[in-house]
């Protein structure tokens, strides 16, 4: 059973690859002004957990991190 998660994005690190928004457009967005990541929701629910983790791993600059509700950070190394 996946745990509830909280997503954080680091817009300074974001390189604007569009990867997150192309895979999970309900969760991520991209600013028209600077091309960087925006969050549609920080708590997408347990259903999306696996997909979000996939995006965390693929983000080229490690700009996306997730934190499980029990506060244990599952940040991509």
């Amino acid at each position, binding site marked *: 059973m996946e745990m509830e998660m909280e997503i954080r994005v680091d817009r300074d690190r974001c*390189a*604007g*690859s*569009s*990867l997150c*928004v*192309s*895979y999970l457009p309900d969760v991520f967005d*991209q*600013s*028209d*002004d*600077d*091309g*960087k990541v925006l969050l549609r929701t920080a708590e997408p629910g347990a259903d999306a957990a696996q997909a979000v983790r*996939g995006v965390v*791993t*693929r983000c*080229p*600059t*490690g700009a996306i991190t997730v934190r499980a509700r029990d506060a244990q950070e599952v940040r991509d190394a």
Partner: protein
Amino acid sequence: MAPDAEHGRREEPLMSKPINTAAHIRRNGIEPPPELARISAETPLVQVEAEGLLFSGRHWLATGYDEVRAILGDNRFKMLPPAQAKLGGGGQVEVGNLLQYDPPDHTRLRKMLTPEFTLRRIRRLEPFVAEIAEDCLDALESAGQPGDLVRTFAVPIPGLVGCALLGVPRDDAADLARNFNASRAVANFGNRIDDRERERQRAAGNAFVTYMRRLVRQKRRTPGDDLLSMLIRDHGADITDEELTGTAATLMGSGIENVGGMLALAPLALLQYPDQLALLLDRPELIDRAVEELIRYLSSVPNSIPRYAGENLRVGGHLIKTGELVMCSLLAVNRSQLPGVPRDTLDITRENSGHMAFGHGIHHCLGASLARMELRIGLPALLRRFPKLRVAVPPEEIRFRTWTPNYGVDELPVAW
């Protein structure tokens, strides 16, 4: 030697014997040489002697998933050689080419360009690209069979997209294309061309860049609604004309080399795997996954731009010393090392392979979304028009561009 399971935890740097190989540069048609997967499994980071190749002399070769991610994700590995570097790059730095910049200059230029390549902007170009693709297919069809897919389809699509992005007047496109084509392969890995040919290529390359320089000056005087004009309008004081010229030349050049390469390699791969081609014809909704899988499988940029260690750096237990050069084989990772790809077959139903064909880290391909879109539009248009497409020469006569940084074919005669 068995792979080291304790990456990065050793006190003493691993000492492994340099190997003599060109496996990261060679190919067998669309397949990597079998040796490459073995190197990944046994020595995911290793020193290589490769005389007469890209860089004569010893350099590091990274072929492991963790190693490549660690190197490309670490900005202490630099694009420009530090003073201590033993091996030089291609010579002169190209002003405006993002792949020759390190932070903070890289950050400044990339920031200006990123908003021009958002997914939303790219999607707005779809109808235009569809129109171009149909025009190219009309030309191919009316010229009769066999026709060269490279010259009439694969190269003109990204070429015309580039012209539209940069605001190149339609009347200038043919001349520009001629010069660009004549300049291709200047960056040949080996010394495979004679001096006269090299000089001819250099002259054509100069004419191409000179055109871009004139275009930039013209956009400064009378801006339009193209990418160059927007850069000038929004950041005109923070970017020089030479940087704009280099940016324009790089965008056009990498579009043609990379997307152009893929628009010929992708149909070729599908023709070599008829079950996958049949599946795509039967289920066109698979196109997004198919494009992603073809990008992984073909990895048309087999190696990332070489990086130089800006200081002594440890990766996977090895010590890479200041100034040493590292090649990262994206092809090796994508074809044998991805955790999400247990079996390396061309499978257009595959989801989320996690490939690194567009690189990793701050230099992740700026045009990735544009490249994906051109493939997503171009490939189905081709297959719809010619459902019985076939290669019109025996496989051994297909001329692959093995010695260039971007893999592709010189020409691809097709019939239908």
